[in-house]
């Protein structure tokens, strides 16, 4: 694992006459072994930051370094396999991020064959270890994604990313497509894995409660900029910026059960 430093990142889409600034001067640090939450609503630019870091999109300007090395320059120079070892992404929707025509075992075997020196006959043992790591039974390797529940699929996607042993993991809304009772289990897993493996992770979400639980620090994005940054518990408990306060205030809370809280929010505007 290694430290990620994003400085002055700008991503501009569209024609020169009518440019859309998706990311506007973002500074972000994910320390070695740290988990940083990136929070924002749709259109805030958080996913564009994620895609730029993993290399799906290119920045307009700015630098990204991983372990002190310029990631953007490095990408141009090395093979796809080398690039894969730098950053891995776990996608939002496990229903679409796994190949429906490959069993779980085949999918993991593929990654192991590309990224490790493990001989073919020892790979089944490695696959079992990976499945064990994400709390899945060994029998899961015979299954196709369609035969699994959403939570199980997301575990497979996590195992697949771990199999690469990347230096950084970008988790993009990995709990939002899951049922409420399953979200907690995936968050627990990420927390456990972090302790076991010392993962460096950028955890992207719109769910402040999840970020507060999982991340050390949090950056709040709004309209392409980071408006507030700090230790996760502080930002959520004592938001300084108006936008962060609005976000925190909008989270539905069981404590408001049976009150007129909702109606009062209408009067405030």
């Amino acid at each position, binding site marked *: 694992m290694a430290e990620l430093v994003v400085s002055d990142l700008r991503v501009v889409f569209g024609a020169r006459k009518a440019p859309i600034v998706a990311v506007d001067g973002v500074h972000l640090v994910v320390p070695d072994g740290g988990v940083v939450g990136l929070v924002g609503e749709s259109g805030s630019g958080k996913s564009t930051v994620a895609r730029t870091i993993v290399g799906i999109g290119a920045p307009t300007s700015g630098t990204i370094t991983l372990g002190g090395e310029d990631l953007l320059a490095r990408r141009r120079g090395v093979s796809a396999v080398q690039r894969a070892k730098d950053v891995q992404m776990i996608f939002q929707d496990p229903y679409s991020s796994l190949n429906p*025509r490959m069993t779980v075992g085949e999918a993991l075997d593929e990654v192991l064959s590309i990224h490790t020196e493990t001989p073919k006959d020892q790979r089944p043992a490695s696959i079992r270890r990976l499945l064990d790591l994400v709390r899945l039974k060994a029998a899961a390797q015979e299954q196709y994604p369609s035969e699994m529940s959403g939570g199980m699929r997301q575990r497979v996607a996590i195992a697949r990313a771990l199999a690469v042993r990347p230096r950084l993991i970008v988790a993009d809304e990995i709990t939002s497509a899951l049922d409420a009772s399953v979200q*907690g289990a995936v968050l627990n897993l990420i927390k456990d894995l972090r302790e076991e493996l010392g993962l460096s992770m950028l955890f992207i979400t719109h769910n402040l409660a999840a970020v507060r639980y999982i991340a050390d620090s949090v950056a709040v994005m709004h309209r392409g900029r980071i408006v507030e940054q700090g230790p996760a518990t502080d930002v959520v408990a004592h938001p300084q910026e108006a936008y962060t306060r609005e976000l925190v205030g909008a989270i539905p809370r069981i404590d408001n059960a049976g009150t007129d809280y*909702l109606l009062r929010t209408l009067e405030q505007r």
Partner: protein
Amino acid sequence: MSQNRKPSFLRSPMGLASATVVGLLVVLAIIAPPLWGAQASTPNPANLLRGPSSEHPLGTDGLGRDLLLRTLVATRTTVGMALIATACGAAAGLLLGALPSVLGARAQRWFSAVINTWLAFPVLLLAMLMVILMGTGTVTAVVALALTMTPSFARLAQTLSSKVGGSEYLAAARLLGVPKGRQFTHYVLPNIAEPIIVNVTMSIGGGLLALSSLSFLGVGVQPPSYDWGRMLSEGFEQVYTTPTAVVGPAVMVILAGVSFGMLGESLASFLRERTRGRALSPAKLGPAPVTDPLELDPLQEDVLLDVKGLSVSFPGADGWVRPVQDVSFTLHRGEIVGVVGESGSGKSVTMMSVAQLAPAGAAVTAQRLNFDGTELAGMREQVAAKAIGTDIGIVFQDSLTALNPALRVGTQLAEVPRVHQGATKQEAHERAVEALDSVRIPNAAHRATLFPHEYSGGMRQRALIAMSQIGKPKLIIADEPTTALDVTVQQRVLALLRRECEDSGAAALVVSHDIAVLAELCQRILVMYAGRIVEDVDVRMLAHPEQLAHPYTRALAASLPDLDTDRTKPLATIPGEPPDLSKPVTGCGFADRCALASDRCRTEVPVLVQHRHGGQVACFHPQDGSSPEDSGAAGSETTLHEAHEEGAVA
């Protein structure tokens, strides 16, 4: 599923017939030439142009050769040419159409331009060009046919693979460093294979006809070789003297062409069935399961909706699937009630059945479905829907698909007053603008003239609420109304929904998987699990988890992190999976995941009974902190139990 794949294909009469004929053709193509090839091509001057006889059932040709044998021997040339041409066309098309999906955007544009240009060439022109370039002959015909087939296969492959190319699993493969060749063979091809195979099979029939036509016209197979087309053209010369000469090849061309086409069709319908899962016909399944008769209390005065013993069943592969079983609840006038549960718990199906919008094929039974004094149980769906009229308004989850993209928002809203309430065009439009204004859409008069795609997501959802309101309903049913929205937008939409209900006095049933959303919005919550209501509780109890009675409700309330969750402890989770509702569930559906489950829970279904917290619960071991007989009933050291205590402490 996989073990009965083959039989179920051959079980359809069309599939069986076409597969048999194609099988026979293949056998013929293999055995006919070595058996009869020499005989069929040796001239016999003693037997020129004979009519049918016992020795030569189809007669002989101008050189005295037996026409039946020649027809059979020609199977190899004809079918073989069709197969080769189609295979070449399909392979070229597949490469041209599907390969670009792993090569990047620029390659895709280039390949696309090539395919479009190619598609614009007329088939006949292409064939004639080939004849000019290569001269007449078998190879020319095959190449010409392959070339004309290539672009349509390419277009198909392109359309199919563009879906794969945009998929997250291919993006993931790229990030994982999977080589491009492997991306193509292991990610793109398997995911587009089925429709391609179907299309190839059908095209063989068409290709066979096209090749026969070319030979018939004299640009295909040249003598002394012969195929059915060639035989047809030779037979045509003597059609007045021995009309039987054309019968053999004509019958074979038709038979082969049709059976390849049919094989493709039945393959397609088989694959469709397999992906959707073949459901048994209702006739085979017998009547839909009903629940035991209940004692029905007399209707109460202020009850708007009274549901008793509602069950919904779908025909499945092994019998009835029962997503909703024996659901009973009441809704008072003006009351906002939330329905919470995981996906597959039956919450949406229940609410849509109440609104007479159950999915097609569903069998809905109820012992009482009384809405505003009208008994809907037993009515046909259309009659019941008419009886409801505009008294139930619906807010769907996906505002983009719930609104007609081709109509202005104002026009869509005005439809209800115009159709159902006889308002004039002008009045209806004013009502629509008023309704948009009431959900605080700024500049409503202008926005009413815009199309749905010109609205933001939150504004569209508010327009849907306005639409559900415009018929002045007595009940609003909202199915996951804010699931796709950002939290700040969600809060606004929920607040407006609440305000609309309070202003109009309408009652509401709000479906959500997020218990916190319902806590803020509703007065009462129905918790659904595995097709049944397991708890019916005042929403204020949610703030005091120790007051909740059903282990599932407690686990659900404790499983999500909130802004005060202890970061040092693991989140409460519910181990295991919900039961498979396509099989009968004996006992309580939650028993397998419940730490408190006893033998009774696994054999007997708990029914909803009054509970100390003022609501109802369906559980043999209800929890409420003060229950003496159950507090230590079973394994209190388990995850679930710890979870409750954690929740209570936090």
